[in-house]
């Protein structure tokens, strides 16, 4: 075997066990993973962006109908879910900090609470979906939105077809958000198992960090969804 191939082997022996073969040093691997997640989140912004665009157009076209439809959503449950997600963002930050400072118990507890908060969010969302189903507000053949007063126009009623567009967007946007939550829960379950096995150290904690980035992003999507869907026609 020619000598030149041995140079590479010698180089590899001093590697950190988590350092993949094609990176020169751990810093480069960390930077690549973090940049990769940021770039992925940019694609996610565009993914939801198409829906926000559709929402804005129809909200402008069917201003009153969207207000009337929005009022039928349960703002209390929506607000509760907002609070749940904001709390979960806090526990994610704690988990990242704990991983970086080698606080194993705090890491496990924060990851666990994040998982529970995520599940709570999905549970509350499920209750809301069930209510909409019972009220026949799920778009499709059984949809009904009769005799709902149009806000600001006494004696007039909202157009059920336009309200159906609101609920279509409601279900697609919150549904895709919930799908992202479910993926996030899978991610955090995996992080919890890895943390339990003691894989994360102050030198190697990139998965916690980029998992956290993803979780915060999903939270932020909700921070925009909540006022647009629940609060557009609430007056004190």
């Amino acid at each position, binding site marked *: 075997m020619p000598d030149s191939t041995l140079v*590479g082997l010698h180089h590899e022996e001093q590697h950190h066990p988590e350092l993949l073969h094609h990176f020169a040093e751990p810093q480069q691997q960390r930077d690549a993973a973090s940049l990769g997640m940021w770039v992925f989140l940019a694609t996610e912004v565009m993914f939801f962006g198409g829906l926000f665009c559709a929402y804005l157009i129809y909200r402008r076209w069917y201003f009153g109908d969207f207000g009337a439809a929005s009022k039928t959503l349960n703002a209390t449950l929506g607000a509760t879910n907002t609070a749940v997600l904001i709390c979960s963002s806090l526990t994610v930050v704690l988990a990242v900090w704990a991983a970086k400072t080698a606080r194993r118990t705090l890491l496990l507890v924060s990851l666990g609470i994040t998982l529970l908060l995520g599940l709570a969010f999905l549970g509350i969302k499920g209750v809301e979906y069930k209510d909409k189903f019972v009220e026949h507000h799920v778009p499709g053949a059984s949809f009904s939105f009769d005799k709902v007063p149009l806000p600001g126009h006494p004696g007039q009623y909202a157009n059920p077809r336009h309200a159906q567009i609101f609920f279509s967007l409601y279900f697609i946007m919150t549904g895709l958000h919930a799908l992202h939550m479910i993926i996030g829960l899978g991610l955090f379950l995996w992080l919890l198992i890895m943390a339990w096995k003691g894989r994360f150290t102050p030198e190697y904690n990139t998965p916690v960090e980029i998992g956290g980035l993803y979780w915060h992003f999903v939270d932020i999507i909700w921070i925009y969804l909540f006022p647009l869907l629940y609060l557009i026609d609430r007056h004190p």
Partner: protein
Amino acid sequence: MSMPTTIPQPVERENYLNKEYGVWSWLLTTDHKRIALLYLVSITFFFFVGGFFALLMRLELLTPAGDLVQADTYNKLFTMHGMIMVFFFLIPSIPAVLGNFLVPLMVGARDLAFPRINLLSWYLYIIGGVMMMHCMLTGGVDTGWTFYAPFSTNFTNTKIVEAGLAIFVAGFSSILTGLNFVVTIHRMRAPGMTWSRLPLFIWAHYATSIIQLLGTPVIAVTIVLVAAERALHLGIFDPKLGGDPVLFQHLFWFYSHPAVYIMILPAMGVVTEIIACFSRKRIFGYSFVAFSSIAIAVFGFLVWAHHMFVAGISIYSALVFSFLSYAVAVPSAIKVFNWTATLYKGSIHYDAPMLYAFGFLGLFTMGGLTGLFLAALGINVHVTDTYFIVAHFHYIMVGGAVMGYLGGMHFWWPKISGRLYPEGWARLAALIVFIGFNLTFFPQFLLGYMGMPRRYYDYSHMPEFQVLNVLSTAGATVLGVGYLLPMVYFLWSMRYGKPASDNPWNAAGLEWKTASPPPTFNFDEEPVVTWEAYNYEELDAPHKREVPVAR
């Protein structure tokens, strides 16, 4: 079977091709070079499937009467031709094959930043491809590749949802490729490989990746909306229920116009490398060529509604989009002028890759200039949905992107396979492709301008269109021969071609400083770059032919 050519090298160096054998060493590989070859085989398959549909269409149009196929079949033929060629050939062609192979080599990295995600992207492509094939074999789609609502959502009874899902999955494969390139170009460059020393192929791929990353998610969510609308009749795109079909067109073209730049930008990168090498000159105006790629990516996102001038958009927005469409011609023209200036006083070699690059220059210029016709509101209304449009975008996508792809395949084939292709055959094939292409598509400009609509299978009310249609069909068969030839002699050369040296073209660029074919981790020693890009003056200087790799 032993051949004389293999005897002079009794001990073959270990490289990415002979390191491991067997099906699993390919299907589970994370080596970017092997994944590039997986893509090469798969996109070639889809290219010939899509080409077969094109040939059937051309045969139908040989006579004015609709006699070879029925209207329904014809609708499915052009739909499946478009969907397969756009999503399963053109979009992955140069990035996923040549880009995958060359991006790490050119920046001096051992692999892409995320090798397993790279393999995942190929599997997503294959899953999407299998779904598309299944959809096609069990009935297909008849809406045109644009699947406009409300026809696609409310009326057609063909397999819209399955085709949409296939495109959705293939789209994720495209996103992951772009993500890998962006991170690799940012984080994996070898010491000394500054941004201004990057080959312009890399700049072009960086711009392409930006479009893949920011455009593809929008078509993904559009497909979600179409599928939901079709399943539940939500009314988002249905005017009867208060929805807006034009919104579909906006969302669709927001991706699908920039998608044209996903196809053409990498070809521009390839041509830049070839022209510099075969003119033996540094590229003229390096930074202008680099930033014009970025400018095309940015402007490309702002021109989508020029596909919708007759869709009932406001005249004021049409004016703005018309102006912006003219503006996107500026960076494209900058590139053409810089390539021409590079040729000026260069010592030009007419090898096969250069012939393809010349073909690209001419055909892309034709496609680009007719694009300016179409950006003009008045002419656009006259030729919308005619063969003028068909000819225009084929000059860009086939004359531009496919010529670039073939040129690049010839240029880097010695690096990919370690063998030389037969130069005489390759020059002949390049000539055949160029002649066949023009014979196929130039008559379509005339047909379109005379008023022949696209997507018609029967033109018996206008029999005078037949002459030009016969020319076009004849050209398509010539073009088909031109495309089959390279496949035949590439395969032949893998066994019988002369072994290639590390740098058979005496080209600049890091990929030529490692073995042909490269070892699995690309470089035996980590390269350190101390020279500027395209240093052909130094390479050709008589006293030193090779710039040493500094340690």
